C-alpha cells in the first residue's frame, strides 16, 4: 500500500502540474450540467409553455408523482425532478472524459518519457504500479464529479420548483453518482491502462477506453424510452457486475503488462 500511495502522490502532483488535461472533463461536466436546465427551465421559459401542459411529459409526470421522492411535488416540479434525475447519468461520463487521457497515457507515456525503466528497477510490483496509475486517473475524476454534483444541486435549488432538489438526495440518485459512476469510470480506466500497456501510442488506448461511453449512453436512452427503470436495486445489480468486471480487468491488466516487452521492444 505504501508504494501505491507513493506513486499515486506522484501521479496527482504530475496532474497538478498539467491542469490542461482536465479541460475535456470540465467541458463534459458543464454540458452535462447545462443540458437538463435547458430542457427543464430555459425552453419552457422561452416558449412560455409549461412542461406539465405538454402531453409528452404527462404520463411520465404521473409515474414520477407515484414515487415517494416526488409525491409532494406539483406536476411541473415532478417533471423537472424526472428530467434532473435522468440527466444525472450524464454526469457519470465526466470522470471518464477527464481521466481517459490520463489513463491512456499511464504506461505508454512513462515509456515515451523514458521514466518507466528506473521505476521498474524499484521493488514496485505490477499490481502496485497499475493500481497507482488507475487511481491517479480516477481520483481527480471522482472529485470533479462531486464538484459537478454540488453545482447541479445548487442549480436545481436556485432555478427549479421548490422541493425538486430533494429528489436528488434519494438513494437512486446518490447510488448513480457515487457508486455506479466511479465503478463505470474505473472499468473504463482499467481498459485504457490495459491497452496502454500494449500499444506504442497513447491515442490507441484513448480510443479503445472511450468505448465505455457506449453502454452509459445506452442506459441513458433506455431510461428516456422507459425500457429500463433504474431503480436502486437495478443500480446495485449493475454496480455489482461492474465490481466483478473491475476485478477481472485488473487480473487481465496484470497479465498484459509484460515488463520485458515494454522495456526491450518498445521504441
Amino acid at each position, binding site marked *: 500500500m*505504501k*508504494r501505491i500511495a507513493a506513486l499515486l502522490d506522484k501521479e496527482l502532483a*504530475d496532474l497538478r502540474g498539467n491542469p490542461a488535461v482536465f479541460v475535456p472533463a470540465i467541458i463534459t461536466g458543464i454540458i452535462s450540467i447545462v443540458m437538463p436546465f435547458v430542457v427543464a427551465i430555459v425552453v419552457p421559459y422561452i416558449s412560455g409553455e409549461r412542461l406539465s401542459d405538454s402531453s409528452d411529459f404527462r404520463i411520465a409526470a404521473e409515474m414520477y408523482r407515484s414515487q415517494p421522492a416526488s409525491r409532494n411535488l406539483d406536476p411541473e416540479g415532478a417533471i423537472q425532478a424526472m428530467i434532473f434525475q435522468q440527466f444525472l447519468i450524464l454526469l457519470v461520463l465526466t470522470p471518464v472524459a477527464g481521466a481517459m487521457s490520463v489513463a491512456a497515457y499511464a504506461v505508454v507515456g512513462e515509456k515515451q518519457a523514458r521514466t518507466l*525503466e528506473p*521505476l521498474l528497477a524499484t521493488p514496485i510490483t505490477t499490481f502496485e504500479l497499475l493500481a497507482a496509475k488507475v487511481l491517479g486517473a480516477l481520483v481527480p475524476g471522482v472529485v470533479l464529479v462531486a464538484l459537478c454534483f454540488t453545482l447541479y444541486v445548487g442549480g436545481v435549488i436556485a432555478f427549479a420548483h421548490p422541493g425538486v432538489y430533494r429528489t436528488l438526495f434519494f438513494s437512486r440518485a446518490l447510488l448513480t453518482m457515487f457508486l455506479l459512476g466511479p465503478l463505470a469510470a474505473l472499468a473504463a480506466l482499467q481498459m485504457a491502462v490495459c491497452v496502454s500497456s500494449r500499444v506504442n501510442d497513447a491515442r490507441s488506448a484513448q480510443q479503445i477506453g472511450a468505448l465505455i461511453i457506449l453502454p452509459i449512453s445506452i442506459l441513458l436512452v433506455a431510461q428516456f424510452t422507459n425500457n429500463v427503470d433504474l431503480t436502486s436495486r437495478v443500480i446495485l445489480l449493475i454496480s455489482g457486475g461492474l465490481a466483478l468486471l473491475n476485478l477481472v480487468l485488473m487480473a487481465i491488466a496484470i497479465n498484459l503488462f509484460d515488463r520485458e516487452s515494454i522495456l*526491450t521492444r518498445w521504441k
Partner: protein
Amino acid sequence: MAFVATLVASHLTRRFDARVAVDDVSFELAAGEIFALLGPNGAGKTTTLRMLAGLIRPSAGAVRVNGRIGLLTEAPGLWDRLTVERNLLVYARLHGLPNPARAVDETLALFDIADRKHDRAAQLSKGLKQRVALARALLHRPDIVLLDEPTSGLDPESARAVRELILRLREERRAVLISTHNLDEVARVADRVAVLSARLVALDTPAALRARLFGSRLLVTLAGDAARFVDLLRTTAADVRANGCTLSIGVADVERTAPAVVRTLVGAGADVVSVVAEQAPLEDVYLRLLQRDAR
C-alpha cells in the same frame, strides 16, 4: 586485498527471437571495484545491465547478487513536471526507506544539488539531470551500482563531475559497473574492462589488455646519442630501438625491467634524462580486440 565478489554473472545469455543479444557472458564484480563494460552500439551492454538489475530474465545463465542494486538508466528518466526533491522522494518511498525526507535531503547534500531541490526537473541542464538521476540510483545506499552510459552527451565539466562521483563510489567500497563506449572515461576510472560484442571478447585490467595486444615498452631519453647503448641493452631486452636521444625497449614487465635498464645504462656512463612506460591508447586496444573478434 582478497577479491570478494558482490555480483557474479554466470554464462548469461539473452535471445530476442532468433537474435542473440548476449551470448554466454561471465564475470564477477568486487566491492570497491570499477568495472567497465565496453562495446559498440548493439553489443548487448544495456541488455546485460538489465539482466543484472533483474529487469529482464536471461534466456540462460544466472546472476548472483550479494547486496542491493542501484541502476542509472541510459536516460535520466526524471518526471519533468515534478521538482528534484519530489522526484527523489517518490523513489525513497518506493524503496521503503524509513525516513524518506531525510534520505532525500542527505542525498541532495551529498551530490551538491540541495540548492536546486525546488526546481522542476524540466528546468535542469542535462548534466544536472544526470546528477539527480545518479542521486536517485544511490538513494537507497546500494552495494552494487550499475551505470548505463553515465556521461553520454554531457559537456566536459559535467562529465568530470559525474566521473568524480563514480570515483567516490569506489572509495565508499561500492561495486560499480559502467556500461559505456567512452574509452577516455574507461581509461580514467576503470579497474577492469570487459569488451563485449554479444559475447565477451576480452576481460582484464586496461594495462594487461594493452600489454597483451601491444606489449609494453619503456621510453628512455638520454642526454646524447642513444644508438651506442642498443647492443648493451640487448642483453636485458630483445627488442631495443634507438631514435636520436631516445631508446624504445620492449619489455614483458615494465615495473621489474625499468630499474635494471636504468642501472645498466648508468653503469655504462649514460646520462638518463627520463624513463616512461609507453602506453598504447585504449582506443587502439579496443579496436584491435573488436577486429580480432570480427575475423
